[in-house]
């Protein structure tokens, strides 16, 4: 399909969302740096947001009446706001961890292992 001349559909936006989500998950799974894991979380949330916005846009799909409309935008806004809170708390935890262990390598956090 030639993307330069034909209109994109909802599925294309969903593909972008899926790629963002998957890279975020891979990032969370493979990074040992705690800040890197936080970044993975941001990517995952953005992938989800991408889907919300795509589903909220009526012009992107053949069955227009079923789009989320304003609700999708609203949920995306809440996700963005909560992501900010999550980043602040997550970063505070990371800093606290750093003060105590002098590293941000999450593999070092093993005091609670039995």
């Amino acid at each position, binding site marked *: 399909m030639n993307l330069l001349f034909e209109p994109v559909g909802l599925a294309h936006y969903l593909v972008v969302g899926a790629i963002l989500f998957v890279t975020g*998950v891979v990032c969370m799974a493979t990074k040992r740096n705690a800040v*890197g894991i936080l*970044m993975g979380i941001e990517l995952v949330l953005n992938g989800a947001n991408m889907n919300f916005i795509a589903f909220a846009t009526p012009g992107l799909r053949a069955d227009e009446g079923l789009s989320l409309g304003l609700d999708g935008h*609203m949920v995306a806004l809440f996700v963005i706001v909560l992501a900010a809170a*999550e980043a602040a708390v997550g*970063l505070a935890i990371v800093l606290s961890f750093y003060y105590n262990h002098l590293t941000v390598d999450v593999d070092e956090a093993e005091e609670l292992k039995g």
Partner: protein
Amino acid sequence: MEAINWHSCFFLLFAILSCGFAVAVAVSDNIVRMAVYLIASLAAVSGLFFLAGADFVGAMQLMIYVGGTLVLLAFGVMLTARGPLVKIATGGGQWVLGAMLGGGLLVILLQAAFSVEAWQRPEVTPEVAQGEDLATAAPLGMGMMGIRVDQLDETDTVKRGGMSGYLLPFEIVSVHLLVALIGAAYLARARRPAHLVQSGDGGKGDRRPEGGDR
């Protein structure tokens, strides 16, 4: 020559940017570079939001996410990344596991995305592509206040009762933010780093420095 569809063109540009930088975040080992790639990726995502007609959400993404959250993350990177700590390499086995997990997830998600025929392409050219003025800020604001100006022509009273705005979630989120703010400030308040704490002064600061008797 067929007319170029600008919506698709810009979609392609922003999609390639956001996905490319997202992949770069995942594969990079240098935490500072990761932060830069993440900024680029999220900025491109906000471009996609603008493209999809969500101008307010796009601006919000730029302001809160890119301008606020990521500055915070960059701040965290600068506070914690010193010399050798910039790079914490990931083992090969973890990469294989991560790639397998990611690949499986991607296959499932892509299958879901392309499974519905109606999602493949729009019936008409999207309004956004025709350069119409978007106005989502005011309806969104009214929605936050509990008035759904976009649903006023909904005749079904049951449905209208179900979409009575977002005043309560808005309040909950604001209280949540306040709690998060106070909690973060409490957690991150300046304590003396462990390597400066004299052993034997007791209390909270008496944690063993790195490389204790593990």
